[in-house]
Every structure is written in structure tokens, then in C-alpha cells.
């Protein structure tokens, strides 16, 4: 295992060369390829997979804002996804709201719930927060399941109307692909601007050491709430598009399994890495959507990936965040002065 870990963590000259290219060029190239695709291809199945990858990328980027940028352990992204989907679908069906407004409404609604989950984050940290968010997601699922009058209960809402944008109804997978590409591009651009700003630096300070962040005058509570609001709003946007794209919204789409998948995507791609999250979504969702035979083994895939990432390469494929315990830096074992100190755990 040590050898595998060593191989995964060495820097090859090619990797160094690739890393010298400014990241914006990767985005430009990826966007160019994605824009050429609809011209050269008409493969509806491929566009369906790509749309799902982009929806999940937005969803997982929301999780990455909370966990990767701000360091808050959350496991309830499916709840925000569900809130976004139900809000958008119900508003368009019952009130005939134009889609852009419904999209904004689902982001706002999910963001408000994010605020609600963020409040415990001020009081409790770490794994307690983890369980609070699991609990919140489960409460939301039970509400979706039991509030028959509004959510349709276990049956859900079938035959969701398609998205209508400025008088043009989206019918093909290709049109949904272009919409989600547009939304993902906006989200990626906005997130890059946010992490480059003082907000991003404050998130990072809260993640690395809360007490130190407080000591230099950062309002920790405010930034935690902001991270939750932002992450939840992204989940809401993803849910809104997914609800209309799949033409069905039901409680089975927003379970603990969806939260687990988002978590795997973020860890696989790398905490705090925006391109990494998209890569993670492409690998995981691409695999699940294209190989339906994988469905019986999906927990093996997810569980195996989680184990492999944390044991072999904790920073993920493209991540740079090094998870470390807060407090004084670890003592260098090669240090002369400390070499003679007994190591109780190792001896036995």
C-alpha cells in the first residue's frame, strides 16, 4: 500500500508541465469542446449523460463550498437538491411562474434552508454537524414523503412540464444540455471570483483553524452561514434543472444515497477544487448513467472510492487541501531532539 501511495503522490514532469498552463485555458478548451459537440453530434443518450454530469457538478460544487472551502462537514446535500426541485416544479405547475423566476426562487428557498442548517454549525462542529445534516436531510425526505397535499407523497409529481425559456420550450436533451452548460459555466465563473475574494480567504481561514480565524477578527459564524447559504443555493439550482429534465420529482430521488454520491464526488475530485469536482462528477455519474448493470454494485463503487481516496490520496484527484488536525504543527520525526522520545503506540 505504501508503494501505491508513493506512486500516486509523486510529481511527474508531465504533471508539472500541465500545471504551468494557466487554469483558465482548460476551461476555455473544455467549453469549446462542449460547444462544438451539439453541432457535430445528435446522440440524445450522450447529451442526457452530459446533462446529468453537469447537474451533479453544480450540486457537488455546492457541497464543496461547504466542506471544501469552508471546512464544514455536511452530509445533507440531497435535501437542498430536493427543496430546489419541489420549489421550482410546484411554482411552475400551480402558479405558472416563468422558469427564470422559478430557478431563482428554488435557489432562494434552498438557501433559506441552508441558513437553517447553518445555525447548528455555529454551535456544534465536526462530526456532530455531520449527524445534524444527515438528520435534516432525513427530516426533509420524510416531509416530501408524508406531506401528501403539496408534494404528492410517495407517488411524487409525475409529468412535470418542460422548461419554457422566453417563449421557447425545451424538448430535446440537447437543449437541456445547453441550458445546464450555461448554468455550470456561470456557477464555475462565480465560484472562482468568490474564492479569489476576501470571502474565499475567510472561508479558508475558518477551515484551517477556527480559533485562529476568530483571533484575527474574522466573523466565523457569518462565514459559516454564508457557506451554507451558498452551497444550499447551488443545490437548489441543480434540483430545479433536474426536476424538469427528468420530468419527475419524488421522495426517492432525494435520499441519503444522493447525499453520499455528492460526498464521493467531492472527495474523489478533491476538496476545494472546482475542476476536480467536475471531474469527480464526470467519473461517477458518467459510470452510473452509462453502465446500468452497475446498479447492484453502486454501493461497492461508492464505498470503495471513499476508502481508496482517504487511505491512498486524501487530497483527491485534483485537490490541494491537506486535511490536518488543528493545533501545533506535527513534530518532524527526523528531528534530532525528538528522535529519542518513545513512541507508545508503535511499540506495542
Amino acid at each position: 500500500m505504501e508503494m501505491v501511495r508513493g506512486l500516486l503522490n509523486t510529481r511527474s514532469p508531465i504533471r508539472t508541465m500541465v500545471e504551468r498552463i494557466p487554469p483558465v485555458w482548460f476551461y476555455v478548451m473544455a467549453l469549446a469542446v462542449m460547444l462544438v459537440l451539439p453541432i457535430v453530434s445528435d446522440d440524445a443518450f450522450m447529451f442526457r449523460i452530459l446533462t446529468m454530469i453537469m447537474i451533479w457538478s453544480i450540486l457537488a460544487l455546492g457541497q464543496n463550498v461547504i466542506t471544501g472551502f469552508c471546512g464544514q462537514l455536511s452530509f445533507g446535500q440531497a435535501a437542498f437538491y430536493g427543496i430546489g426541485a419541489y420549489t421550482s416544479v410546484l411554482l411552475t405547475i400551480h402558479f405558472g411562474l416563468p422558469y427564470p423566476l422559478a430557478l431563482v426562487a428554488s435557489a432562494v428557498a434552498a438557501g433559506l434552508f441552508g441558513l437553517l442548517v447553518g445555525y447548528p454549525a455555529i454551535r456544534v462542529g465536526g462530526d456532530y454537524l455531520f449527524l445534524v445534516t444527515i438528520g435534516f436531510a432525513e427530516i426533509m425526505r420524510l416531509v416530501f414523503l408524508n406531506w401528501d397535499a403539496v408534494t404528492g407523497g410517495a407517488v411524487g409529481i409525475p409529468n412535470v412540464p418542460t422548461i419554457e425559456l422566453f417563449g421557447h420550450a425545451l424538448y430535446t436533451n440537447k437543449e437541456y444540455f445547453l441550458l445546464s452548460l450555461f448554468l455550470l459555466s456561470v456557477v464555475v465563473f462565480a465560484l472562482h471570483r468568490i474564492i479569489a475574494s476576501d470571502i474565499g480567504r475567510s472561508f479558508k481561514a475558518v477551515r484551517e483553524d477556527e480559533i485562529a480565524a476568530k483571533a484575527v477578527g474574522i466573523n466565523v459564524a457569518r462565514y459559516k452561514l454564508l457557506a451554507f447559504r451558498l452551497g444550499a443555493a447551488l443545490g437548489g439550482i441543480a434540483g430545479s434543472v433536474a426536476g424538469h429534465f427528468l420530468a419527475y420529482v419524488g421522495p426517492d430521488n432525494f435520499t441519503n444515497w444522493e447525499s453520499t454520491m455528492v460526498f464521493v464526488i467531492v472527495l474523489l475530485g478533491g476538496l476545494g477544487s472546482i475542476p476536480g469536482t467536475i471531474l469527480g462528477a464526470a467519473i461517477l455519474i458518467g459510470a452510473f448513467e452509462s453502465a446500468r448493470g452497475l446498479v447492484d454494485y453502486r454501493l461497492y463503487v461508492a464505498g470503495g472510492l471513499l476508502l481508496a481516496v482517504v487511505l491512498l490520496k486524501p487530497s483527491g484527484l485534483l485537490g490541494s487541501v491537506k486535511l490536518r488536525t488543528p493545533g501545533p504543527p506535527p513534530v518532524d520525526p527526523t528531528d534530532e531532539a525528538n528522535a529519542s522520545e518513545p513512541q507508545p503506540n508503535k511499540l506495542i
Partner: protein
Amino acid sequence: MTFFEYFFAQIVNGLSAGSIYALVAVGYSMVFGVLQMHNFAHGDTMMFGTYCAMAMLLAGVPAVVAIPAAMLIGALFGLCIERLAFKPTRGAHRMVPTVSAIGVALIIRNTAQLIWGTSTEPFPLRVPQYTFQVAGIGVSSTQILVFATALLLMIATHYFVKKTLIGKAMRAVQQDIDAAGYMGIPVNRVISMVYMLGGFLGVAAGILFAINYNTVFLMMGFTTMVKAFIAAVIGGIGNLQGAFFGGLLLGVIEAFAAGYISSGYRDAIALGLLIIVLLMRPNGLLSAKVAVKV
């Protein structure tokens, strides 16, 4: 049924369900205490062990052999989880063992799904059915059996931790892992033992759950684990007596929620309780406030 009969019937239902939560919470809390790490694979160990007991009973193995054997399988799982998910990640960021434990839990769940499928099965152990009338309230023999067994196991655990040498070593490791090592306590072996004991008690609770509700299903471990966690938080995590009372309290609150509000929202109310307790007293209802060490 009069108001009081209905009221006390809910309490009886709540106590039998709560004793199961209490038993899971005691195991969970003990494992948490030793390394201060949540074992997210606890619930799935419990589920897998219960399925093993079911399979053995269906194969004709007598219950006196099948149930202890399933509990030993739980202990073995506890050991494997510790070796696979916790030992390699000791000293890493707190999130790392949490994530690796979830990874192991998913693998266990998928294995159970491949062997036994996703349908809900009845538990093939028949307990003689009697109903005792205590002041007009019916108490079934199953409820008495579940409550008595859970209570007995918890008392046994309490004496094991307080009176035996191994229990003393466990408490020492829990108090100060480094100092325990300096005193010659085999720290790694003791930690493994705690995880084994956790798995052992977890499967026992899983079998009681299966007897009480006459069902075995894939997600029973996950939901029960979350509830055990709530019980442990109510009682102050790491505190075994607290976990016991927390479990009983949670069971009764849930029974009232199901009886008077709506059975569909039973779990939602339990989870809402968790969030409220954590918001008001992050260290639990029964524990003192501890300052964060810098």
C-alpha cells in the same frame, strides 16, 4: 380504550423500543469514548449480523447457537472495521476516519444486498405470545423479553467495563491514550477489543429489534444507528448511563409522537429533537460543559 390506558400503552411501547436504542447507544457510545471517533459502520454491522442470524435460523440452526454465533460475527466485523477504517487513519484529520467508516459501511450494505436482496423479511424466531394485563394495559411477552434482555446486556456491559481488568484497560485508554501506553497497556489490542464489544452488542440489539418488530431490512442499521446517536447525544456522548437513559427517553418520545401526532413523522420528530438538543446543549443533557483545548 380510555385516555390513560392509551397513554400508558404508548409508554410501554416506547420503553421496549427505547431499550433497543439504549443498547445500540451504549455500544456506540463506548466505541466513541475510546478514540473520540464516530463509528458510522456500527449500524451496518448490526444489520449484517441480524441477517446472519436470520439465515442461520432459516437453515435450521437452533436459536441458542445461531444468536451467539451472529453476535460473534458482529464482533469480527467490529475488529475488521477497526483495522480497515480506523487504525490506518489514526492521527489524521477527524474527517478521515469518518469517511473511511462510511466507505466500509457502504461495502457491508452492498454485500448484504447482494446476498439477501432489498426486500423486507420477517424474522424467523417465534417467541411464545402472551399478553399480560397490568392495570388494564396489555403488555406482550415480546416486549418483556426485549426489555429484559436489553437491560441484562447493559448491566453486564456496565460490570464488564467497571470490574474486569480488560474493562479497566479500556477506561484507561479512554482517559489518556498516551499515558495508558506508558503504563504498559497494549493500547492497540484494547482498542480492537472495544470495537469488537461494540459489534457484539450491536448485533444483539439488531436481533432484539428484529424480534420486536418481526422485520429484517437493509436500512434497519442506518436508521437505528442515527437514533442510537440521538440517544447518546441526549445522554451526553461517551457516558454509558446517559446513553441508557437517553435511549429510553427517545423511545418514549417517539412512541408519543407516533401515537398522538402521526406515525409518518415519528423519525422526523426524533431527528428534530436531536437538532434542538445539540443547539441548546451541544454536550448533551446530562454532561458538564467542557472548554475546547487550544
